[in-house]
């Protein structure tokens, strides 16, 4: 019972943070709202029993990536966003589109609720050992390919960020 209350509580915080992200006009406030979303998502994972995923969510997303976001915003000293009224096409097509999508999802879920199993809180299995077995044994190849992909992305970022003449000259001799 307590778990369910906490789950709903953090779910509400998560949604509130996401809404606040869109409403706030200052980039720093939006970034901080995103941190709140990440942190409350971690709490939800924890309540579901996926402790490792929760910890990684906090360490990687809330603790590292969002701090980099924040540094970037601080460095650029981005001012308030300008508000535009939004295009009429987006209003005309977007609102019905979102409504239809939401109705479709709800309809499908309700129609199949008898066949889908419900996840009870705390029942997920996400101990570090299980996840390690999946990552380094069962799905080793996809895992390694992903890491190579990320490496390529990093190298691409370095190439794009460095000045063209520096690339042509090769690595600096004095470094």
């Amino acid at each position, binding site marked *: 019972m307590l778990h369910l209350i906490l789950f709903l509580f953090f779910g509400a915080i998560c949604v509130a943070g996401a809404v606040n992200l869109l409403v706030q006009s200052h980039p*720093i406030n939006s970034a*901080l709202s995103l*941190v709140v979303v990440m*942190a409350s998502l*971690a709490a939800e994972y924890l309540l579901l029993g996926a*402790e*490792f995923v929760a*910890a*990684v969510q*906090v*360490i990687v997303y*809330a*603790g*590292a990536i969002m*701090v*980099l976001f*924040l*540094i970037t915003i*601080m*460095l650029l000293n981005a001012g308030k966003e300008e508000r535009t009224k939004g295009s009429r096409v987006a209003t005309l097509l977007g609102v019905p589109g979102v409504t239809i999508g939401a109705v479709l999802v709800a309809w499908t879920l309700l129609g199949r609720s008898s066949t889908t199993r419900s996840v009870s809180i705390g029942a997920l299995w996400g*101990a*570090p050992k299980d996840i390690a077995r999946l990552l380094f044994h069962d799905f080793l190849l996809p895992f390694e390919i992903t890491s190579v992909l990320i490496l390529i992305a990093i190298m691409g970022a370095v190439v794009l960020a460095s000045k063209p003449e520096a690339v042509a000259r090769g690595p600096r001799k004095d470094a």
Partner: protein
Amino acid sequence: MSITTFVIISIIKSVAVVGILLTAVAYSVWLERKVSARIQNRWGPTRVGPFGLLQPLADGVKFIFKEDLTQPHVYKPLYIAAPIIAVVFAITSISVIPFGTWVNVGHWGTYLQITDLNIGLLVVLGITSMGVYGVALAGWSSNSKYSLLGGLRASAQMISYEVSLGLSLVGVVIMAGSLSLRDIVDAQGGVFWHFIPRWNIFHGQTLAFFIYMISAYAETNRTPFDLPEAESELVAGYHTEYSAMKFAMFFMAEYANMVTVACLATLLFLGGWHGPIFGPPILQAVMPVFWFCLKVFFFMFLYVWVRWTLPRFRYDQLMAFGWKFLLPLAIANIVVTALAVALRAQYPGTF
């Protein structure tokens, strides 16, 4: 155990642990002032109480009654939230730190720890990584160049050194086969050759210990890594615009983080509460906690000692040292440890 007993015991433990932590924080400041004075051939605080022991109390009263200035140019919501964020995350991480074995009081028993999680180590790392926000936001919301530079330096430095800090702990985790702090300590019981304790620092993780200590000094913004508040260039860095209790909260956060780091070093590398146990039963029950506190005290002393011995790094040296030296070393340590553990599993008895 009924739910009422559980709640009562948890409340007692939480209040006791947080109380002890805050007292330890206050007296770390006293220790720092006293030791630094001795190192510089001065006396340090002597007037308030014997040996200046009531100085933290006087400081606290002063901070509370001082005028709390809020400059007109700050961004108020975050300016007020930043010290709160810093101090909250600094204190929260103590909740998963174990500091002793199972104790029985009457017919109630409990572990000397607020709560035992099977991912305790990751929780501490996660909470510490959230602590960056306090410093970064303080720097930005103050709207002054010194604060901003301090905040930027702090967040860049903390993120950089968090990588090698985390990686230096992986060796210990591989050896213990668990992320629970209690399991890691339990794996370090016993001795080699009848006299060398089986602590991780003597058990192949010596390099990891030094990597951890260096990164931890950088994580807590202590000298020689105190560039975020380098007073000779940045006035006071990220807390330039803060006064009274808000300033004190940053100080509390820094010292509470130091205590956490010292606890973690004790648990992971120095065998936690393991130590010689002797004497009558009542003494035997207290000895583990005593050993734990002694080791933590040693690390706190080391912090002060290092601060007044080493000069500050230059910023480029700091970054080059973290990324080009500590990080490769930490990775090498993981590879070697993993290899040793795998070989020991393959050929039992040879290692």
